[in-house]
Every structure is written in C-alpha cells, then in structure tokens.
C-alpha cells in the first residue's frame, strides 16, 4: 500500500480494529475453543476407579462395537459416491447434453430436490416406501409375497440419499457442461469421432475437476449423514454421536467422550478429503481457450435402440424424483383417514391439513367414546407446527443473513489484502468450519457452552432455556461460513478492479466505494447464497437434533415428533397430512426464494429497465384500449 492510501484509511482504522477483534472473537470463541474442548475431553475420561485414564475411550473404541459405526458410515459414503455420480451425471447428460424429448420437464423434475430436501424428503420417501407406505401397500396388494420392510436400513438410506444428493450435480455439473465450447465437440466429430467417443474423450475430461469436487462433497455428505440414517434406521456415526451426546454416564461408559472421539474421527476423514480436494484444485482446471466460444448443442442419439433406452431411463428417473412430490401435494389435500389407509380417495378432499381445526372422536380401550378437541388441525392452525415453522424461519433467516454479512465484510478485507498474510489468515479462519463435521461443531457447542464458566459469553449458559436459540443461530452461521465464503469470494474476484480505481478517482472513499459500487455488483450472488443457506437451514434436522431442547425445537423436529406419536390417545390425528401440507408450504417458500434470487435477482440493471419499459408499454396499451372503448 502506498503512502497516499495509508493516509486515506486513517479514519477507518477504528473500524478495522473492531473488525479484526470481531473475527478473532468469532474464530477463537465459536470455532477453536469449543472444538479443542471436545478434543481434550477424549483424554479426560475417568475409569471405574475414578482415576484419569487418557486412553480409556480409545481402548473402548478398539474393543467394543464403536468401529461398526465408522465402518457403516464409510460403506454408505463409498456406495453413495458411486450411486450419486451415476444418477447425477445421468440426469445432467440427459437434460443438457443429449437430445431427449421433454428435457425441460425432466429438468424440473430432477431439480425438485433443490426445494424439497433434508428431513422433508426422507419423510416423503417413507410416506411412499415404508412398510405401510402408499406404494409399498399398493405393491403388496399386487405381490402379496413381497417383503413389506424392503425400505429400511442401509438400502433405504442409500436409495433416499442417492436422489437427495443430486442437487449439487444439477447446479454445478450442469454449469460445467453448459460451459463447454461446442466447437471442440464439432472438431472431434469432424475428425471422425462417434458421439459417445466425443463424450468420453472430449466432454468428460473437461468435467473431471467439477466431478472430482462433487465426489469429495458426496463422500463427506455420506460420511456425515444424519437425517436419513436416523429416520430409516441405520447405525452410522452421526446418529450415534447425537444419541451418545444425550446419554448419561449412569447408563453407559463415558458417552460424551465416545461422542467426541467419533466426532474427531469424522473430522479427520473430512480433513483428509478436503486436503486432497484442495491440492487437486491447486493443480488447476481445464479452461476453454476459445475466444469465440460456441454454445453447446444437444447431441442426437443416432442408434434408435439406445435412443429409446435413454428416453425410458430418463422418464423412470423422472418418476422416481416426482412421485414423492406429487404424492405429497395430493395427500396434503386428503383427509386423515385416507392418509392413514395410504389410499387415494377421491371423495376425501380437505383443506384441514393447511388451515382450520376439528375435534376428533375416538373409541377408548374401555369402550367409551372420547372427544379430543382440536386434534385435527392445519399447519397454520396448529400452534406447535406453526411455532416450529416460525422458529425455523427466524433462526434460518437470521443465520443465513449473518453468514452473508460476515462473509461480505471479510471478503472486502480479503480482496484488498489478498497478497498479504492478514487476508490469507482471515480466509483460512472462515474456512475452518469446513474441516469439521457439522455434528462436531454442534456437539462441541452443546458441551462447551453448557456451563456458566465461559467468560467471553458473559458466563451465561448458552445451552440453557431460550439461550439455546442463540447457540443454534451461531452454529447455523458458523457452519455456513465456508460455503458462503467460497461463493461470495468468487463474485468479489469478478469485479473489475478498474471500477474501484474509477470510484477513487471520482472522490469516493473506501466505504462509499464498497456500498455504492462493489456491493450492488455482488448483491445477486450474496442473495443467491442467502437463499441457498436459508433453504438448507429451514428444513435442517441434524443440528437441531444435536441441540434437542424444548426452546430450540425446529420445524423438522416438531414434525418428526408429531408423526412419531400420530393418533396416540387421539392426539395429532392428522400429523401426516399436516406434514404433507407443511412440506408443500416449504416447497412453495423455497421455490419462491429461488425464483426471486435466481430469476428476478439475477437480472442486471439493463434487463430490469427493459422489463420496466415493457410493463410501462403494456400499461399504456391497456389504458389506450380502455380510453378508446367509450368512443
């Protein structure tokens, strides 16, 4: 920095010191200290004699069945990499590369997981495929010998997660394939390569960096799976950590230390994988060197047999993707009795799952009829569901916004000091949560802040009563920092540096340049990150399950609990219907947010002005028509 700039920044020094202090507080207070505490807790265990035994947990791990959870998680992660890549690459090729009839509709179907994910998706699949699920019941009627519990355990987890985890392929691999220079495809064809040869030799190599990143991310997702194994019954690491975290030493040997050890194992796997990923990314990517890039044109499959098979495959996948969505929408308008029978009844339509209340009369085991007042209620009339939605909405929105604000401020700093140590340190500090599994962070928060001895939070127990909400917001925020940083940093780097010089030359200071010039440019990306963060957090299950507390019961937890107790003693009779309705509501909210951000929000000023002009012209045309009529 030259002397001129140094003098200019002097009034901003105070702000800079505050910023540095804030980031130090965030990093040490909410990332490093809690996790270090978890790490050290492993070695602070006491044996039956009450003596400190640093290796007791490790011995327990080696002798007992804890390794089973690690192996199960690894098995899931490895197989998930294969199945997700097969399905993910297929759906991208079918919609973007090959000429498949109805590709637009297919794409919409494949993209439903973007608005319908997490616990909602798992429960949706259970609604269809569980032993009493709609489709299983249907199949059972046709094939009485079939195993009704086919959809449980490992197979069910793998099936569900395979389709749930293709959203990233639809986002990133799709962009990568759309970025291919069509001239390279034409050149290969011109040299005599058949379409599949072109795909294999020209197209795939350019997609390898993206596919590698997606593979690593899928592996980590499989390893850290939480909602699907919990709901579908599969013994993997994360559900076990949550179980142990809530267990007491009176019931089993040092549960907290075991949970910590499992978290650390998970963290080690994550660190190794991310190190491999980043070293691969440092090697560089295939870049198009074309100055006149041609847009990719869809390839016709010349062989009629392959063409038909590809179409069948595309539509089978479409049905798998769409069935839960369609069923959930339909059954959200069905009465509790139709839902309970898992049969579509065209005479049983209702809006009660959305709005309103009804009493429920049931026969007790003493042979008396009892009425449970307001037992049948809609999403917007049921206090608990609405409370869960409200809480999730507020916490997710707060955390998503906070993560964006922190990252935007940090990126501005990093961008200015990208060749200096301070910029690099800040960037790594914000990427730190990526090294740790979400569950480790949440577990660390739960144990570390569950005391009144943490001085830097004013000696308040953050896991107590309503404070837990603050803890959830912090956990949500911290876990979303790395993703937000990667996305927003990329948009900062796309800002033309001359814009900053121009603003400076015209007399604008650092803050004004940031607010008036840079922020409006990166705002669409920031909003997109906000939307993706919000959508992910709104239906989030893993973290709120770790923080299980009556003051922090998120939507996913509420709906889960209600469905588990559906109809018990006449309570929550239409819990499944309400779950369907709330899923529809969340799909609508997520869909609107994605449309606002990616549709309207992605328009530049020129496109917005053009749209405004078109609206004005339409209005003028309309008013001219009305003015003419009386004459």
């Amino acid at each position, binding site marked *: 920095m*030259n*002397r*001129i700039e140094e*003098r*200019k920044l002097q009034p901003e020094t105070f702000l800079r010191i505050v910023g540095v202090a804030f980031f130090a507080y965030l990093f040490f207070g909410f990332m490093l200290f809690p996790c270090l505490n978890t790490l050290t807790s492993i070695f602070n265990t006491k044996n039956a004699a009450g003596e400190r035994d640093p290796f007791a947990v490790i011995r327990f791990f080696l002798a007992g069945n804890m390794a089973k959870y690690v192996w199960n998680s690894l098995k899931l992660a490895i197989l998930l990499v294969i199945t997700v890549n097969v399905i993910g690459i297929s759906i991208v090729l079918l919609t973007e590369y090959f000429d498949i009839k109805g590709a637009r509709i297919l794409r919409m179907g494949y993209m439903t997981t973007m608005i319908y994910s997490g616990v909602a998706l798992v429960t949706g699949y259970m609604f269809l495929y569980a032993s009493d699920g709609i489709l299983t019941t249907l199949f059972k009627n046709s094939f009485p010998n079939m195993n009704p519990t086919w959809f449980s355990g490992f197979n069910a987890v793998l099936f569900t997660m395979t389709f749930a985890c293709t959203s990233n392929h639809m986002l990133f691999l799709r962009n990568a394939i759309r970025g291919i220079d069509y001239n390279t495809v034409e050149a290969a064809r011109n040299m005599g390569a058949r379409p599949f040869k072109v795909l294999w030799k020209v197209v795939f190599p350019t997609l390898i960096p993206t596919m590698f990143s997606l593979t690593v991310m899928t592996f980590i997702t499989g390893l850290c799976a939480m909602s699907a194994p919990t709901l579908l019954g599969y013994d993997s690491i994360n559900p076990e950590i949550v179980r142990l975290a809530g267990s007491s030493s009176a019931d089993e040997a040092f549960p907290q230390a075991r949970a910590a050890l499992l978290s650390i194992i998970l963290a080690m796997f994550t660190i190794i994988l991310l190190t491999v990923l980043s070293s691969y990314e440092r090697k560089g990517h295939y870049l198009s060197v074309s100055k006149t890039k041609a847009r990719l044109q869809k390839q016709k499959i010349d062989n009629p047999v392959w063409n038909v098979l590809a179409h069948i495959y595309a539509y089978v996948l479409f049905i798998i993707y769409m069935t839960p969505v369609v069923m959930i929408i339909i059954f959200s308008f069905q009465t509790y009795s139709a839902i309970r029978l898992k049969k579509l009844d065209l005479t049983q339509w209702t809006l009660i799952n959305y709005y309103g209340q009804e009493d429920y009369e049931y026969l007790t085991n003493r042979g008396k009829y009892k009425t449970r007042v307001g037992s049948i209620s809609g999403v917007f009339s049921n206090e608990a569901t609405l409370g869960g939605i409200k809480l999730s909405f507020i916490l997710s929105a707060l955390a998503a916004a906070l993560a964006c604000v922190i990252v935007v401020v940090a990126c501005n700093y990093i961008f200015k000091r990208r060749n200096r140590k301070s910029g690099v340190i800040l960037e790594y500090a914000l990427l730190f949560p990526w090294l740790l599994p979400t569950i480790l962070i949440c577990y660390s928060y739960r144990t570390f802040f569950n005391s009144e001895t943490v001085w830097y939070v004013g000696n308040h127990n953050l896991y107590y009563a309503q404070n837990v909400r603050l803890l959830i917001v912090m956990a949500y925020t911290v876990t979303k920092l790395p993703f937000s940083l990667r996305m927003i940093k990329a948009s900062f780097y796309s800002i*033309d540096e*001359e*814009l900053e*010089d*121009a*603003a*400076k*030359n*015209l*007399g*604008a200071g650092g803050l*004004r340049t940031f607010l*008036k*010039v840079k922020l*409006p*440019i990166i*705002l669409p990306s920031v909003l997109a990150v906000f939307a993706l963060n919000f959508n992910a957090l709104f239906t989030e299950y893993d973290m709120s399950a770790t923080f299980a507390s009556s003051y922090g019961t998120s939507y996913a937890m509420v709906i889960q609990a209600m469905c588990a107790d559906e109809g018990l003693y006449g309570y929550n009779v239409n819990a499944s219907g309400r779950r369907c309705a709330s899923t529809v509501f969340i799909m609508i909210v997520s869909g609107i947010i994605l449309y606002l951000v990616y549709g309207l929000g992605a328009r*530049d*000023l*020129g496109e*917005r*002005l*053009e749209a405004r002009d078109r609206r004005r012209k339409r209005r003028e045309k309309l008013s001219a028509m009305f003015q003419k009529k009386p004459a």
Partner: protein
Amino acid sequence: MIKLNDIVVKFGDFTALHNINVHVKEGEFFTFLGPSGCGKTTTLRTITGFIEPVSGTVVVKDRDITHVPIEDRNIGIVFQSYALFPTMTVYDNIAFGLKIKKMKKPEIDQKVREIARKVDLSDEQLMKAVSQLSGGQQQRVAIARALVTGPAIICMDEPLSNLDAKLRVQLRNELKQMQKEFGITTIYVTHDQEEALTLSDRIAVFNKGYIEQIGTPNEVYNFSKTEFVCNFIGDINRLSTPVVQQMIDAGAALKETDHNYIRLERMHVNMEPQPGQISVTGTVITREYYGLYIKYYIDLGCQTVKVIEKNDGVRIYEEGQQVSVVIDPRDVMAYPPGEKKEAAS
C-alpha cells in the same frame, strides 16, 4: 502544464520506470506509446496517483502533486474497460463524481445534461443501463464521466482497445474532435502506433521503463532517434550489407557497420534513379493488395525487401517479374550497433 521529473517506480526489486522526464504542454494531446510492459500505463497511474513513485516529482500547473491523494488531483480518467458502474444508469454514472462533491441536485442535473449533450448522448440514453449501450456509446459515457467534474487533465488508458477495427477508427476521429472542442490537456496511452500517430500532438515512445524518444508524429516516424523507435513505429526494412555497400560505393555517407533502415514507402519500383540514388534489380516474390496501395516483396538476391507503391491501376507488377528498386541513401536511418537506451527529455 504537467511535468514528470526523474520519476522512478519500483515493484519490489523490479524497476518499472527509470528516471522518466516528460513535459506536457497545456491543451496538448500527448501519447505514451510502447509495447506491453514498457511502463506507459505505470507512468499514467503515477500521474493519476494510483502508484506513488520511489523518487521524482509529478508537477501539474506548478503544483507538486506527487503525494496528493487520487481524488484531490483533479485529473479525469477514461479506463481501458471504461470502468462504468454496471449497477447504475448512464445518468448516475456521470453524476457519481458530482454527488461525491455534494453538489445540489439541480446543479448536478444541469451539468450531467450539458456534458451529455457535448458528447452526443441523448436524454433517453441517460436513463439506460450502461449494458444497454454500444461500445462507442459506452466510451462517450466514460469520457463524460471523466470530464463532468471539470478536471484540468484527462488521462485515457487504451480506451479504444476493446472495440472492433471499424469502430476504433470512427471513435478515434471523434475523440480528437472532442479533445479539440474541450481544449483539455490529454494524456493518452496506447500500444497502437497508428492510433498514436493520427491522434497525438506529441508522442513519448516507451521501452522497458525508459523513454526512447519524445517528438511529434513526424519526428518519431521519419526521424526515429533510436533503433527501437524506428522498428516499433511503422513497417521498415533493415538493409543488408551488400545493399549498404552499394550505396557507400555511390558516395553515400553510411557505415557498413551500422544498422541501416529504410521505410517501405521511401523505396520505389521501376523508377529512373536521380543523382545520389541507387538502383538494385530484383524479382517480385509476392504482392499484397490493399486497395489504396500495393505491398511488394522483392528478392534483391542478398535480401528480400518490402516496398509500397501507390495503386494507380496501371503500374502493377506481377509475381516473378524482374524489377528495379530505387533507394535514396538520404532516407536511410542509421544506428550504431549496441546503442544503449538513455532517458530522453
């Protein structure tokens, strides 16, 4: 008007500018010309304040501005990418500097519309987003934004480099016209010699952080001070020893050991040599047809030379045809071998 005195700029151990001395007169259109990485943009950024020199001074109207902050220098800049703010309308882009100066709205409005009229931007275009304008219109916006605050100097960093060839020529003329109209001292950076020659009152030719020559377009073209300048500006033939020897034999005051150059248009095909001129026979290898003129590649036996002849539609020589090439030794620019660069003043 602008004086750069012994400017030295270093990036780490690398010296980007070596004792640069330039004096730009008021109202002059002054161009920094040179290949990529020669220091022309660094010099411009030193004037505008984005780079602070290690030593030397930048003086504008007898005021030392070497350490004056960028925004207080009163220098307008037109950037290579135009650096128009994409999230603002054309109007807001032009008004940006005025708003920072906390001018009142009516005054801002008046100034914006006035400058827009001068650079030929309509009221309708003012309300558009910059992305809705063509390259030429965007350039006008960039000029208007740079001029609206009433700077003493305007600096332009390769403002035509992003445009296609036809538009570049069109806007070059408009730029010159505008500069004359506003009468503002202009410093222009380019690597395009044709642009420099057509636009400039004077040119500073940069090479490896040094200025090789400062002069009018005619001076740098016809009286290139250094071998680099003569090679960089326009197309040229370096004459081989036998040809030079022939001229020496004919009484020319040339040295065989020097590097001797001659411009393409200074040699003529099949003309009667005048006293002092020499004629060398050769064969037309190939020709390039440019419409206004024709370029011939002629093999003289000892070397191939390029010669340009006006296209009169009559005297057109075929490939393989025997011709004579007439050279006047007075048109030869000679440079002693291994000449060292010196900072020109």
